[in-house]
């Protein structure tokens, strides 16, 4: 095992910041290439903001069944699984609600929103039909998918696995805008992960802490980031069709994969007061921060070293 500090790189991808940390510094270039290939493939398949993406074709198919590639199929099934396991609290059919709320283009191009919030009933995941054998997906007319909650986490899991493979099984950590996935042999001291409201927050901001993780995934969902106006952010509560306004501002969850962690952190943010019991029931370690900065740790989340 290398005694040197892990090597890292960061760059823009998928509308957010991508970060790659490798135990084997010599493998960084090969791992970066493998991660780049995964992220490009995910973007082509799952982006809501690219007219040429498979998801855009599906969203405009208006009731026709389409044959899709294996990656979009995997992403849609990850979204459906999240919906089933959370009782519809995390639902991929929030695309139209996000558009009406104003999130209708890449976030960097959004202008601050004013005026009343427009909402629509979220049709729910049962409006999606999947034929896995024939790789065909059909959406009910008028249904629009947004896979943001789970596709980015899926990308992190796939990219971390690809990076570790490129390094011959060496340890890799991929972080896509706060969705962290770990693969391969970790460094002896583990991977240090700083928790913050926003993944771009500078070190030392109030309420941050640092933990060590060696396996699986870690995700943070927050209503303090990706906002474009009062009461407007990217996490939609399917029950209301409006941005979630529960009692937590930020939730971090650790799980066996980043997809599971992201599913749970998004669900917890929407569930509000029921989130702690729900995470406990699923034995998912979680850290919940309310709007005043008070922190609640559940299901074995470690005692915190407050970040300097």
């Amino acid at each position, binding site marked *: 095992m290398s005694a040197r500090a892990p*090597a890292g790189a960061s760059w823009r991808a998928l509308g957010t910041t991508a970060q790659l*940390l490798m135990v084997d510094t010599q493998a960084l270039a090969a791992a970066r290439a493998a991660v780049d290939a995964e992220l490009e493939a995910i973007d082509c398949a799952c982006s809501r903001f690219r007219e040429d993406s498979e998801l855009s074709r599906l969203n405009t198919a208006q009731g026709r069944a389409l044959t899709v590639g294996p990656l979009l199929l995997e992403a849609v099934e990850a979204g459906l699984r999240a919906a089933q396991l959370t009782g519809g609290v995390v639902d991929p059919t929030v695309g139209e609600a996000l558009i009406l709320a104003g999130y209708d283009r890449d976030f960097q191009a959004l202008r601050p929103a004013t005026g009343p919030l427009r909402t629509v009933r979220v049709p729910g995941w049962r409006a999606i*039909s999947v034929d896995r054998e024939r790789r065909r997906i059909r959406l009910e007319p*008028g249904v629009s998918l947004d896979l943001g909650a789970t596709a980015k986490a899926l990308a992190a899991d796939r990219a971390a696995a690809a990076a570790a493979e490129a390094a011959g099984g060496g340890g890799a950590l991929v972080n896509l805008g706060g969705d962290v996935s770990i693969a391969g042999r970790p460094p002896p001291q583990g991977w240090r992960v*700083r928790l913050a409201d926003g*993944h771009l927050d500078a070190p030392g901001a109030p309420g941050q802490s640092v933990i060590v993780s060696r396996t699986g995934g870690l995700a*943070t969902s927050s209503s303090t980031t990706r906002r474009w106006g009062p009461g407007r952010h990217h996490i939609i509560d399917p029950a209301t069709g409006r941005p979630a306004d529960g009692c937590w501002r930020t939730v971090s969850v*650790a799980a066996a994969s980043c997809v599971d962690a992201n599913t749970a952190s998004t669900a917890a943010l929407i569930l509000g007061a029921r989130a702690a019991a729900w995470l406990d029931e699923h034995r998912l*370690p979680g850290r919940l921060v309310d709007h005043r900065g008070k922190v609640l740790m559940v299901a074995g989340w470690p005692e915190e070293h407050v970040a300097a």
Partner: protein
Amino acid sequence: MEKMPGLGSFAPHRRDRALRRVRVLVWGLGLGAAGLTAGCSVVAANAFKGHDGRSLAAVRAPAHHRRRISVPGPERVPAIENDPAPLAPPSEPPTAAPAQAPQPAPTPEAVSGGS
């Protein structure tokens, strides 16, 4: 006592006959009005040409402006085969981080925050 003149013309059988005639006249007028109304409705219904299917399709709103959503019942939608695997906790839960020891280059760390 002297009989009032013309009292014979109001004899009961004459009065009853007059009432029957009035009743028949009222029924006849009612039936006539109903028939006329029905006839006018039929004429009006066929007087104006409606839209055909082609012109209806041409004025449909763009997809992103339509709000009518039809959601089938759960029994008709094979969304996912079998029960999905449950959400799984990490095989090794995260641990508290020791404070970074001073060293020439601090260990790089990831930041998990909202995005």
